[in-house]
């Protein structure tokens, strides 16, 4: 039985978190002046389902807490109350608290319900129509209210009454007592007869019965003990008050607060609780919601696959040349089936990017208050679908970029007015597909990047020399270098000097890239480019020496046969290839991979031009083979990370082939070696910074 319940618990948690998200979205809409009744209804429904589920699974804290939220929302719904700023904020906080409570229950922990209890009191205040909503937040207010703890919250009593066998002999009659009890209020009786012996052994003067009594009467304990006064020594008597669980906790809470005094302990606990919440990394949800329609489609495809398979095995039983044509047809069908099936299964993992975008309204709401900036968040392209695994990994970089835009990008309202802009700054999130990539843009209409300031800073940091002539784009890209931060002050939000470089690393780790566009005074846009999926890629097979390697097709710009005239050596080890009006550094893969150390004859050799972000490099290879879709297998599972290799795959003939990682190749080739000194210097700078 408990196993069954656990199974439903998982669903309850999942649904509750979804409900909480929906409630959050709704509340944010309310705080932006949305007055639609349907929005309040949505929030109400969310709270209601959580309450029901919480009660069913015995999470009393959750159900009693949501109960108060629900009542408050009900008042808003009926127009008895206005959804003003303060109450919406408290409801938002309640959503956070609920989320924490549910998370604790999900992890099988006993939740720290102090914060919930404190908030519940605030909610009750609002619900009961406390006039000054702004005042309710003070702890002293709670203290005052705590004074008039009401005892009539006891709604009844349960009484366990077990008379000893000799009770009747003392001249007392249980039936009289019970009748008297019934006079106090509604009574439910349960009689226990298991002590009654077989008729032959029964003695008529002995009492064999016992009772469990539920009395629904808000009476004092004395009224009950009075009734049993004469039999106290002749029976087992247990009288327990029935208290509305909500109310009892409220009393305990008040006691607690009196003990800790001024609620200082509470404040501390709140802090602890938050700290814990921060440390615990959000566990990526292991489940995925799929429409039954999609599953039906896949089942159909599997059915077709099975038919094809049986057809082929029948053919294989007695194959002669006459059936060759049929075999070919069968194989074609098999190919089509498996491709469809693959696409179908992959589509399960595709989810609209709104899952990632949805958390931002709340974040912007919170952060804008903290910084006292007025910010409007605009999102577009929420329906753009991408692989769930990619989306999970892109969340943190996105949060960072949005915070960066709010913190550094947007000016304060005063500055904005001075610059002739609206007080309210705009942060825009946009997503769209481009080939097999998803582009996600985070832009702001703030002050834009200050080229000169970045350049000066980069010189200070030793990233560039004063004499270097860089394009705007190259200057902006310096922001993505490790240890670079233009924020004058380290703020709570961003600007710790780590950050954008980590964002870049994460994104490149996913096989994506990041670009920066900016115009001074107009705004800045960070554009992230990510592959649609991490599991399968279209690969270009090629040979270096005797080894077959694979390049992601999407990273290849073109392949060409080199012309000796276009090759020029710079310094001793770098060779450049002039392609139209661009000079592309050449990476000799056989040298980089220690396959063949002898310098290759460049004349007529094959060069594959690949791009990483805006950067182009040429890879020197021996032979181009075909293109095919490959399934990416991690090398790290059983071995370890290899620089320049992003994974392995199994080819049609069963052999293993390695997939190249362009970013890693550039890193390990001589191209970055030139920066070695600089990086060293940068690391030193970081060290100094940390020490200060």
């Amino acid at each position, binding site marked *: 039985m408990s196993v069954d319940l656990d199974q439903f618990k998982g669903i309850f948690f999942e649904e509750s978190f979804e409900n909480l998200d929906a409630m959050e979205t709704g509340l944010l809409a309310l705080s932006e002046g949305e007055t639609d009744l349907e929005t309040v209804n949505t929030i109400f429904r969310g709270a209601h389902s959580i309450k029901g589920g919480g009660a069913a699974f015995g999470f009393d804290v959750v159900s009693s807490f949501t109960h108060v939220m629900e009542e408050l929302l009900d008042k808003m719904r009926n127009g008895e109350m206005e959804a003003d700023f303060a109450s919406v904020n408290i409801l938002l906080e309640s959503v956070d608290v609920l989320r924490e409570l549910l998370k604790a229950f999900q992890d099988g922990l006993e939740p720290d319900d102090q914060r919930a209890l404190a908030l519940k009191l605030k909610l009750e205040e609002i619900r009961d129509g406390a006039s000054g909503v702004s005042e309710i937040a003070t702890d002293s207010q709670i203290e005052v209210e705590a004074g008039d703890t009401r005892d009539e919250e006891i709604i009844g009593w349960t009484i366990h009454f077990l008379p000893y066998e000799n009770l009747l002999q003392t001249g007392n009659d249980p039936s009289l007592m019970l009748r008297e009890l019934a006079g106090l209020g509604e009574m439910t009786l349960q009689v226990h007869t298991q002590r009654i012996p077989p008729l032959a052994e029964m003695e008529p003067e002995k009492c064999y019965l016992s009772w469990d009594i539920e009395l629904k009467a808000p009476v004092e304990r004395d009224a009950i003990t009075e009734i049993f006064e004469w039999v106290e020594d002749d029976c087992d008597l247990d009288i327990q008050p029935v208290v509305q669980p909500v109310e009892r906790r409220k009393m305990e809470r008040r006691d607690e607060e009196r003990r800790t005094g001024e609620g200082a302990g509470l404040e501390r606990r709140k802090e602890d609780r938050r700290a814990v919440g921060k440390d615990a990394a959000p566990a990526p949800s292991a489940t995925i919601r799929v429409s039954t329609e999609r599953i039906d489609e896949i089942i159909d495809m599997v059915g077709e696959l099975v038919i094809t398979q049986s057809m082929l095995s029948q053919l294989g039983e007695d194959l002669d040349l006459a059936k060759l044509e049929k075999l070919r047809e069968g194989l074609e069908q098999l190919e089509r089936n498996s491709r469809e099936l693959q696409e179908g299964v992959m589509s399960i993992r595709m989810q609209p990017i709104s899952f990632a975008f949805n958390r931002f309204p709340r974040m912007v709401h919170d952060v804008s208050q903290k910084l006292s900036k007025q910010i409007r968040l605009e999102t577009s392209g929420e329906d753009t679908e991408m692989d769930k695994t990619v989306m999970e990994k892109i969340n943190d970089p996105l949060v960072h970029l949005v915070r960066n835009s709010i913190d550094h990008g947007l000016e304060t309202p005063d500055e904005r007015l001075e610059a002739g802009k609206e007080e309210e700054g705009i942060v825009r999130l946009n997503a769209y597909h481009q080939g097999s990539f998803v582009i996600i843009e985070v832009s702001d209409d703030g002050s834009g990047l200050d080229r000169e300031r970045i350049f000066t800073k980069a010189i200070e940091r030793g990233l560039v020399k004063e004499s270097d002539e860089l394009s705007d784009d190259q200057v902006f890209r310096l922001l993505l270098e490790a240890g670079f931060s233009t924020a004058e002050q380290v703020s709570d939000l961003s600007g710790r000097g780590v950050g954008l470089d980590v964002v870049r690393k994460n994104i490149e780790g996913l096989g994506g890239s990041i670009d920066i566009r900016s115009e001074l005074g107009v705004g800045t846009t960070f554009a992230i480019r990510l592959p649609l999926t991490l599991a399968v890629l279209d690969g270009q097979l090629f040979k270096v020496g005797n*080894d*077959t390697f694979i390049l992601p097709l999407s990273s290849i710009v073109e392949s060409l046969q080199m012309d000796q005239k276009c090759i020029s050596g710079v310094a001793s*080890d770098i060779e450049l290839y002039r392609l139209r009006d661009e000079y592309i550094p050449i990476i000799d893969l056989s*040298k*980089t*991979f*220690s*396959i063949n150390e002898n310098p290759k004859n460049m004349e007529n050799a094959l060069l594959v031009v690949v791009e990483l972000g805006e950067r182009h490099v040429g890879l020197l290879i021996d032979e181009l083979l075909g293109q095919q879709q490959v399934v990416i*297998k*991690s*090398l790290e*599972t*059983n*071995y*370890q990370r*290899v*620089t*320049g*290799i992003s994974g*392995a795959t*199994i080819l049609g003939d*069963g*052999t*293993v*082939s*390695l997939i190249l990682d362009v970013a890693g190749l550039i890193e*390990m*080739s*001589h191209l970055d*070696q030139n920066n070695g000194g600089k990086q060293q210097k940068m690391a030193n700078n970081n060290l100094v910074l940390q020490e200060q």
Partner: protein
Amino acid sequence: MEAVKERETGIADVNENQYLTFMLSGEEYGVDILTVQELRGWEDATPIPNSPSFVSGIINLRGVVVPIINLRDRFGLENRAFDATTVVIIVKLAGNDRERVLGIVVDAVSEVYSISGSDLKPPPDMDGAISIEFVKHLATIDNKMIILLDINRLINEGIFSKKETADLDVHEISVEE
């Protein structure tokens, strides 16, 4: 590949452990049989660029990419051409942070012995061909010495540890030239 035959060992002993033994350059080595997943004949592995020389490459083991370690090379023994008796022992180990599957190339597999705890002798100080720290015990069976390897340690420290691999002959690409 020759079948592995169980040796007649009389009465089973609770302290007994079974060891799979294999030949390497004329010596007989043993590993705890519980770590062995399967045995395979030698097949060409895909080399991994810039990996230590004892990593022969990776193979496809029913859809799983498995690295292959050449134990002769790792132990500093002279390499020899792979032949019909060359065997890859696929072992499954709890690593530092995760379970790993990898293959070990040996000259030939020999026997499965049950050896009781009391027959295990600590390794003496020896400056032999292999690093002494990977030898867990020595055992004598039919007047033959069997070197029982600490396979967990060998893999986790002798192959994947940074320190160890740094000491070994790693083909770093020389970018200076």
